[in-house]
């Protein structure tokens, strides 16, 4: 059992969920309507809960006394391995919803495939989380239709968000070395194989929403290697403040 690989993998999936969850919480008290505020906070909560399950699993694998909190609040920027798309600043509401739609459209097939993992905890997390992501996708897809096929203003902002985010989506489908080995052994899904399903969801939604997929070929990557945008450090400074100032503090 390649437990080092499983640890690295669980941390990567936890970081993805935590960082996106933290970005979503930034809308609390800033959302356009009360209902959207509740929705964004609830989606954030699902992601943070998912992060806790993955960190908890990682913590059990190494058994070096590090808790979920240590893993979330005690690591520096270069040690975080989340995909870059999750850490980008929340932008306007259109940007937040386009990002959410891209991630949800990936998470549904990814978590569905994770249920097949021969590692029972990963499979259980997949089974639990896919139900939530399916619900998230229903909502983020609905927002694509409403914003894309809405007013001229909502359309142009949504299209601009798509153009800005597009180059961050290829990284969703790039496995790192440990993940490749786990996939080979039947412990992790082959994320590269999920691209066509993701693209079909995106194409069908954008066609209905009168939005277009960019043709630009640029793309950025680096999150899995700990090479981040300048934005992650700021996010961590805020998120980790309490545990950094009062180490080990408990509720």
């Amino acid at each position: 059992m390649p437990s080092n690989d499983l640890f690295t993998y669980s941390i990567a999936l936890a970081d993805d969920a935590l960082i996106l969850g933290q970005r979503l919480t930034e809308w609390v008290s800033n959302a356009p309507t009360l209902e959207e505020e509740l929705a964004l906070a609830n989606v954030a909560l699902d992601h943070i809960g998912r992060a806790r399950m993955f960190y908890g699993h990682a913590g059990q694998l190494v058994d070096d006394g590090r808790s979920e909190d240590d893993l979330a609040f005690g690591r520096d920027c270069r040690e975080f391995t989340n995909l870059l798309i999750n850490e980008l600043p929340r932008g306007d509401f259109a940007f937040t919803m386009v990002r959410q739609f891209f991630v949800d459209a990936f998470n549904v097939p990814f978590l569905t495939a994770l249920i097949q993992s021969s590692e029972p905890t990963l499979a259980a997390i997949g089974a639990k989380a896919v139900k939530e992501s399916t619900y998230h996708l229903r909502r983020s897809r609905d927002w694509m239709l409403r914003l894309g096929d809405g007013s001229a203003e909502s359309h142009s902002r949504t299209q601009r968000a798509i153009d800005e985010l597009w180059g961050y989506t290829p990284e969703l489908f790039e496995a790192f070395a440990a993940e490749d080995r786990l996939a080979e052994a039947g412990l992790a899904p082959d994320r590269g194989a999920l691209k066509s399903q993701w693209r079909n969801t995106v194409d069908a939604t954008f066609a209905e929403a009168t939005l277009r997929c960019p043709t630009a070929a640029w793309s950025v990557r680096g999150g899995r290697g700990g090479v981040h945008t300048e934005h992650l450090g700021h996010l961590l400074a805020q998120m980790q403040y309490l545990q950094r100032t009062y180490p080990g503090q408990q509720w």
Partner: protein
Amino acid sequence: MVLVPAARAERLATRRRASDDSLWALLDAVKDPEIPALSLWELGVLQDVYHEGSCVTVVITPTYSGCPALHAMEQAVREHLTVAGHPNVRVVTRLAPPWTTDWLSTSARRLLYEYGIAPPTADVIGCPQCGSTHTARISEFGSTACKALYRCGDCGEPFDYFKPL
């Protein structure tokens, strides 16, 4: 005749197999902190409880991954058992099988309705205030992770809907 869904039948069987029914009866008094109309058992959070040597082990499962009430539920379980003379309590969180609203019994659904929350359904959603089926969704999400927000077209009251999962 409507058969009990397999997932619910399995939970009932676990409870029937229990060697000590008094522990289950004790925990029936522990209510969901956010929906006090339901016990943890009725909500589907409580999965199992049994003696293990001098210790009482309680198995719970979260409704939603990030449900913030889970910690409060664990505390409430500990308190109830301690007061009843079982100070040595181990609470285990189990993820599989994932929580589903299929575990809500008919009586649990009725309790929700009487409390003012429309129970999960594949059918039309009825207003728990006036019974009208002329209802519309306001938001996919409500005051807690497990609910969405609806409004009645007849009496005009907004109400919570317990989302099927």
